[in-house]
């Protein structure tokens, strides 16, 4: 842990920094920040107005808050269903990514696994593949992977395993598998960097104390890598929650859509029904978890940017 000690002392600078270059950068960043905050505020404010108000004065304030917009978005426009899907898909994906990647990172850095190095480069190579390049091959692969009716191991008249109508296209499980796969390279990369900062002597000490490989991982390294795990979980959450492309291609069933895709259908729908402000309400619903995470975990995220950068 000693090598991470300096991270604890990290405090963001406040106020105008010294040096002309820094001042210019500061001003640019401040302007950018102000612009982003303005846009966000505008979305929130507009989500509480009526369509007529919006078109008569786009920058105005709500006369009376129109909470009904949220009700419309949540129920009529099915944002409730989309949110549920997003929560299921995102949480499952992030959980799987972190579990699988932390184990892989542990094996790569702290065991004498013979293929540790090739494995690490294999994951690294995964980061170099543009995700959009995978759309078509992945689609073909998943489309062909389906089980109409599979029964295995009979006991008398009963099948111990009986799978029916199992598909990976138009399925939340399919999406979870894709996100998990896409997230693993980055997660492994960050976590190996993190594990490398933890002394290997801890693993040896645990081994002598009577721990097997699994106990060492679970009781020693997993608790110690909590800062790293939280960091990758946050980053992966933000990515997965907002992911649009794969969700659009792999899900067409209305009931299975995630928020970003659902929002798009909402946008299409509102073009005809003249309910723009409900769309804004939908946007707020989409942004809310992300915003909350940034506000609550701001500290963790800024620190997290340097996790893994600390090399042993």
């Amino acid at each position, binding site marked *: 842990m000693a090598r991470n000690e300096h991270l604890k002392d990290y405090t963001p600078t406040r106020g105008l920094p010294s040096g002309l270059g820094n001042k210019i950068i500061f001003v640019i960043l401040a302007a950018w920040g102000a612009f982003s905050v303005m846009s966000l505020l505008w979305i929130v404010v507009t989500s509480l107005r009526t369509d007529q108000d919006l078109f008569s004065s786009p920058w105005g304030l709500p006369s009376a808050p129109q909470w009904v917009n949220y009700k419309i978005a949540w129920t009529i426009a099915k944002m409730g269903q989309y949110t549920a899907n997003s929560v299921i898909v995102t949480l499952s994906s992030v959980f799987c990514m972190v579990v699988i990647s932390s184990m892989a990172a542990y094996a790569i850095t702290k065991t004498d696994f013979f293929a540790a190095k090739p494995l690490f480069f294999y994951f690294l190579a995964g980061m170099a593949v543009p995700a959009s390049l995978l759309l078509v091959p992945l689609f073909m692969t998943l489309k062909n992977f389906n089980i109409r009716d599979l029964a295995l191991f009979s006991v008398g008249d009963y099948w111990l395993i009986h799978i029916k109508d199992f598909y990976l296209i138009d399925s939340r499980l399919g999406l979870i598998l894709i996100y998990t796969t896409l997230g693993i390279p980055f997660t492994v990369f960050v976590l190996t960097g993190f594990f490398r900062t933890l*002394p290997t002597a801890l693993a040896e000490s645990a*081994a002598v104390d009577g721990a097997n490989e699994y106990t060492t991982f679970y009781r020693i390294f997993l608790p110690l890598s909590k800062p790293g795990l939280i960091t990758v979980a946050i980053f992966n959450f933000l990515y997965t929650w907002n992911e649009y492309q794969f969700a659009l291609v792999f899900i067409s069933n209305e009931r299975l859509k995630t928020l970003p895709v659902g929002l798009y259908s909402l946008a299409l729908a509102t073009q005809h029904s003249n309910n723009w402000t409900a769309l804004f309400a939908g946007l707020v619903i989409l942004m809310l978890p992300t915003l909350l995470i940034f506000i609550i975990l701001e500290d963790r995220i800024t620190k997290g940017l340097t996790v893994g950068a600390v090399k042993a």
Partner: protein
Amino acid sequence: MAEVSIENVTKIYPGGVLAVKDASLRVEDQEFLVLVGPSGCGKSTTLRMVAGLEEITEGIIRIGDRVVNDVPPKDRDIAMVFQNYALYPHMTVYKNMAFGLKLRGYPKAEIDTRVAEAAKILGITNLLDRKPKALSGGQRQRVAVGRAIVRKPAAFLFDEPLSNLDAKLRVEMRAELAKLHHRLQTTTIYVTHDQVEAMTLGDRIVVMNDGLIQQVAPPLVLYDYPANVFVAGFIGTPPMNFLKGSLVREGQKAYFKADGIKIKLAPDLAGRVEAHMGKEVKFGVRPENVMVKGYTSLSEDENVAASQVTVVEPLGDEQIVYLQAGGQDFIAKVDSHVRLEVGDTTQMVFDVGRVHVFDKDTGVNISLREKAAVA
């Protein structure tokens, strides 16, 4: 409690580094054995092979009656104290010490008793709720030792446990470890590169160099009867002097002879090196066995060399004197009341009863009596 035996063990690291060559050792039950040697000589490697943290390339290691070559560390019933302690940073001192017991399924009450007992022995009872981060170096060291002793293992393995402490604390902990061993009587293998630690703690000392065991012997035997030039030079501060020259026989008498130096050998020594008469050798004498003529009763005519003083280092009770005779440098450790000035020429007396003669090529001590030879 158990004995540990290492039989013809060789370790070659992946990449081809030959770290330990054909080492054989037997650590008796309840013995405190110290492995000492310069950096990179293979001490840690040997210890880690006993612990099961490194694979054995060749040979056999036994703990008790059991061959442990393929036994994982957790099943070897040993406890190890690491150089940097390797305490679990997220656990309190209590949990650090209890971890091994918990994994072995001891009941809570038994764990509590053992931890409390060990904490009392080591004087860390008031630290049990702290995390390692909140401990001083010396306290961490005690916790690391505590974690080892609660387990009551067959053997303790220490890898330079004191090297991260400051000089004063090191001396203190050294004494405590000695006391602890006296109390627990557990078989111990202790690695250090500090020869004072080795001399004060070890029942026997193993001197290693370059992956090879040089000599295994009790501390004073090692000091008085070094098996070769390496051991002779490694054990003792300041180190033993080595003078180059040759053995010659003149009538009944035998001499060590070099430029400006001619020392008569004691008759029994002369007999033992008879086979090397006329050959070049290294003549070894410890600094405390080189004295100033006039301040010792040992001086005769033929054990004296005229020498020039080049440096004098007063240490208080004694002084280290750097000398030169016939172009060869050597050191004497003499009483501080002897008045010597740089540039003086003095007659230096060699205590011929305590000199060693080494083969110039092999470095083997050819002046040893048979029975004192390598244990």
